[in-house]
């Protein structure tokens, strides 16, 4: 059974520091170390601080919070790009992520070859790639352009190919940093339907977004984050209400 269990998750990482020729450590340009309490410099950033939640099959989690709250970082920990420094993440099921769907597209290669390469990078087998190829080409509406180099594509064509490739699998657990769409009005409608089918078929979804309409249409649960901490975890409507109340409060305080 697919599930995600996150317990007391913490992630700290060092501020970017590089050894210079003099052997001294110094922060890279434009990024000074933060001054902490007692005037000591803080060399580590706490990106995620003691987050716990658990999701089981059918749950759709919305990750809500202001910019810099740690939403993307949390998704990247769940995906495995970042290793947590404390706590634990237990995941049962295959995790797929839609972060940067344009990653790895090569200008010189044809659309067809790009689908193959992207599939390999995603961990698809040769058989899986072959199986999905025709469907991806059809969905992307590229027609004969599929056998021409990617660099000849218009932006919209490139985006359509990326979208069609990225969404051509049936994920067990799907991580999304913002809802994705692509193309002109017609394609957007198609893309929306495709996303909805995919989301419905997935066992678990974790979606970070600022768009309440999309979250309401997709999610069942909400996790409100601020500065790496979880402020609230529960049913989506309560989470949205909590977030709204909290941002109003923060807004008043800042005035």
């Amino acid at each position, binding site marked *: 059974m697919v599930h995600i269990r996150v317990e007391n998750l913490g992630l700290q990482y060092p501020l970017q520091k*590089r050894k210079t020729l003099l052997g001294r450590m110094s922060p890279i340009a434009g990024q000074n170390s933060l001054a902490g309490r007692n005037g000591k410099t803080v060399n580590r950033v706490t990106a995620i601080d003691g987050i716990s939640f658990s999701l089981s099959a059918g749950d759709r989690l919305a990750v809500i919070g202001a910019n810099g709250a740690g939403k993307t970082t949390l998704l990247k920990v769940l995906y495995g*790009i970042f290793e947590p420094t404390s706590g634990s993440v237990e995941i049962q099921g295959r995790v797929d992520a839609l972060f940067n769907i344009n990653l790895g597209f090569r200008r010189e290669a044809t659309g067809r070859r790009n689908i193959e390469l992207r599939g390999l990078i995603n961990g698809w087998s*040769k058989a899986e790639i072959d199986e999905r190829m025709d469907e991806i080409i059809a969905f992307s509406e590229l027609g004969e352009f599929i056998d021409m180099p990617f660099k000849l594509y218009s932006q919209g064509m490139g985006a359509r190919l990326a979208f069609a490739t990225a969404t051509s699998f049936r994920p067990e657990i799907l991580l999304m940093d913002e809802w994705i769409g692509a193309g002109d009005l017609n394609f957007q409608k198609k893309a929306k339907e495709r996303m909805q089918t995919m989301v419905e078929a997935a066992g678990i979804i974790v979606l970070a977004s600022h768009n309440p309409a999309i979250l309401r249409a997709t999610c069942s649960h909400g996790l409100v984050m601020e500065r790496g901490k979880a402020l609230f975890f529960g049913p989506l409507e309560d989470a949205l209400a909590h977030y709204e109340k909290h941002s109003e409060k923060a807004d008043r305080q800042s005035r």
Partner: protein
Amino acid sequence: MLDIIRTGLTDIRAGLGKRKIWMALAKEDVGDSLKRTRLGRLSLLLNYLLFVGTLLFVFGRNDPNYVIYLACGLLVWNFITDTITPSVTLFVGEEAFIKGTVLPLFVYVMRHTMRSTIRASYALIGAVGIVLYDKGVSTGWLYAVPGMVWIVLTAPAAATILGILGVLMPDLKFFVQNIMRLAFFLTPVFWYPTGGRLRDLLYDWNPFTHYVDIVRQPVISDTIPLHSWAICLALTALVWAIAILLLGLYRKKIVFLL
């Protein structure tokens, strides 16, 4: 300590397992670099032949074996620089991938090694041609094959070390570039070690010499350079040990350092 080694080895094993990815990407890389050239892959071979020809023209052919000496030396040397110089920016250059996918780091190392190996294989065709033309067939050549294999096996470890150091010390890029340019002159690729003490010293103490010799000497004299082999075996083992340790230490940290 054991954990570090295990992390390093796990990444290497996982990276090797994703053979399809790095083979495909390396092929694309080599193809892309030649895409707009008229000669295509032939230019890799011609480039090598031109290099040999130019040096031959400049230094003349005083020794009957000089052509082969040069051909084998350049074959190995080109592979060594082609591996070492760009490897400093190996992980830096893959930032988007490292921050966007969960591929093992060793995938990028192997992609890089594969790229150099594909390019070197065109030079190899040229080298075999030159030796055939100049000397004819000999069974001694077979001894050069393990030498070439050993050099290719050393490449991923060297690239791993420099790739990680390049992330930690961005300045290294310029140093390595210059050191490798200089090392070409300090390595007996186009000169013989008979011109005085300095040359002899360089010959003996320059590690690159021995990697060149395990390929070159069998072709020239049908013998196996045991002394050079011993040094190469030890050096490669050392390089791999350091690579595994560094990979284990920085596997998880690299993504934050980029």
